[in-house]
């Protein structure tokens, strides 16, 4: 194991590995430590969706730029990440949702995104198996360039490319302490040895709070267990991801043919418990069959849990903290870390390697939770 690095990244998920790639490409000497295996946290339980339809400017910008990177990523990384653009169809159920959708679409269009509000009778043209009456939809928004990629393969492809540029990635290596001196990072202590560095990136997903507490920084992150399921593989039925903010459901058909989707159970509580529940299986099956009655004949094969690391405004915490020089946050993704990771890590790599400090790093800094008015991301699902 290396005993010295320019940057140590804690966490081998999508954000840790894509940041390692972006830094290594800039010839930065970077090490990733991952306590388990690559994609063992939220990335490995991810629903695979890539969406640009958000209510806040920052998330919309990050996701639009990320899609531009995703479009060329298989080629850039030298491995197929199974990216495809079948769009996202967001159901609108009532007047209140329609007003919010109009606001969102106007903002998204101002950033150049192609997105439309559809009449209810146009929904089946996009996803034929939906029962618009069962959904109680009065319309939908649709963005054709939203889509999917395989989160594990994207994670592995970033790691593979990062290593090719000289990054070292150590799995089954746990960060157990961070040493500082006069409010500057000195080293990262792991169970396999110490690594001297003056820059640490906290990309530990749901464990980010614990990592930050090693240097007495409090991150306002609450962990929520989320459940998700996959059916048996079917012939291609539809290409879009279908979601509803009101019902909390999201589902889509993956490349192999399985339908993957999730929904929060009504009795959801925060916590670290990972056991899947019967309540989810029933609630998901009922809602999915209401949305697409034909699916009642389809078998659910498996369902699993993952975590959302949720911040007070459901937006990530990015960039260097004021109190400790060299301590950089890349966490609090609140359930949408995969889809914005390409741009998030590009921005962070440019900050670390080139000192670039775009406005978005100020807007999403940890300091935003102090006093000032919080801008909530409303378009959260699952």
């Amino acid at each position, binding site marked *: 194991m290396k005993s010295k690095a320019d940057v140590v990244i804690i966490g081998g998920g999508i954000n840790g590995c894509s940041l390692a790639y972006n830094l290594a490409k800039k010839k930065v000497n970077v090490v990733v430590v991952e306590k388990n*295996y690559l994609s063992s946290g939220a990335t490995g339980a991810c629903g695979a969706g890539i969406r640009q339809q958000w209510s806040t400017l920052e998330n919309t910008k990050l996701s639009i730029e990320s899609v531009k990177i995703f479009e060329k990523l298989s080629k850039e990384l030298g491995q197929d990440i199974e990216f495809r653009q079948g769009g996202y169809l967001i159901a609108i159920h009532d007047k209140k949702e329609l007003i919010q959708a109009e606001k969102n679409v106007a903002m998204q269009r101002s950033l150049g995104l192609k997105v439309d509000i559809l009449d209810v009778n146009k929904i089946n043209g996009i996803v034929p198996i939906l029962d618009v009456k069962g959904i109680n939809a009065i319309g939908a928004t649709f963005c054709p360039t939203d889509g999917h990629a395989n989160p594990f393969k994207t994670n592995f492809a970033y790691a593979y490319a990062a290593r090719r540029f000289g990054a070292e990635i150590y799995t089954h290596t746990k960060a157990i302490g961070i040493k500082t001196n006069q409010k500057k990072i000195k080293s990262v202590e792991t169970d396999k040895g110490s690594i001297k560095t003056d820059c640490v990136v906290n990309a530990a997903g749901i464990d980010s709070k614990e990592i930050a507490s090693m240097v007495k920084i409090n991150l306002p992150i609450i962990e929520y267990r989320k459940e998700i399921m*996959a059916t048996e593989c079917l012939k291609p039925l539809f290409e879009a991801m279908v979601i509803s903010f009101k019902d909390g459901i999201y589902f889509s058909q993956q490349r192999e043919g399985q339908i993957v989707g999730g929904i929060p159970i009504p009795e959801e509580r925060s916590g670290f418990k990972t056991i899947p529940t019967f309540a989810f299986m029933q609630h998901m099956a009922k809602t*999915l*069959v209401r949305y697409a009655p034909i699916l*009642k*004949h389809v078998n*659910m094969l498996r369902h*699993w849990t993952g975590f959302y690391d949720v911040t007070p405004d459901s937006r990530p915490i990015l960039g260097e903290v004021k109190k400790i020089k060299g301590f950089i946050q890349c966490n609090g993704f609140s359930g949408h870390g995969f889809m914005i990771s390409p741009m998030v890590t590009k921005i962070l790599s440019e900050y670390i390697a080139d000192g670039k400090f775009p406005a978005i790093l100020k807007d999403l800094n940890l300091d935003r939770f102090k006093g000032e008015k919080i801008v909530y991301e409303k378009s959260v699902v699952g």
Partner: protein
Amino acid sequence: MKKISIVCRCEDITEEDVIKAIDEGYTDIEELRKKLRIGMGPCQGRVCIQLVAKILEKKTGKKVSSIPLPTSRPPEIPVSLGTLASDEK
């Protein structure tokens, strides 16, 4: 004719596929699962996981007994959404 050994019947994964993935650096059974979809089909790994563990032992020297089983995923056997959605007890 080339001799092919199928390791995972659900996803059509051969012994060669597994060996290739291990050579590419996927040496965790969970990483192999996510790379190749072994254990994600209708049988949930009943056929393949022990075979993959043996190949891993042969290739990496890790003992089968020290290779953890992948996380178990309910409902264990395929159950139709219609059955799960009904209120029958």
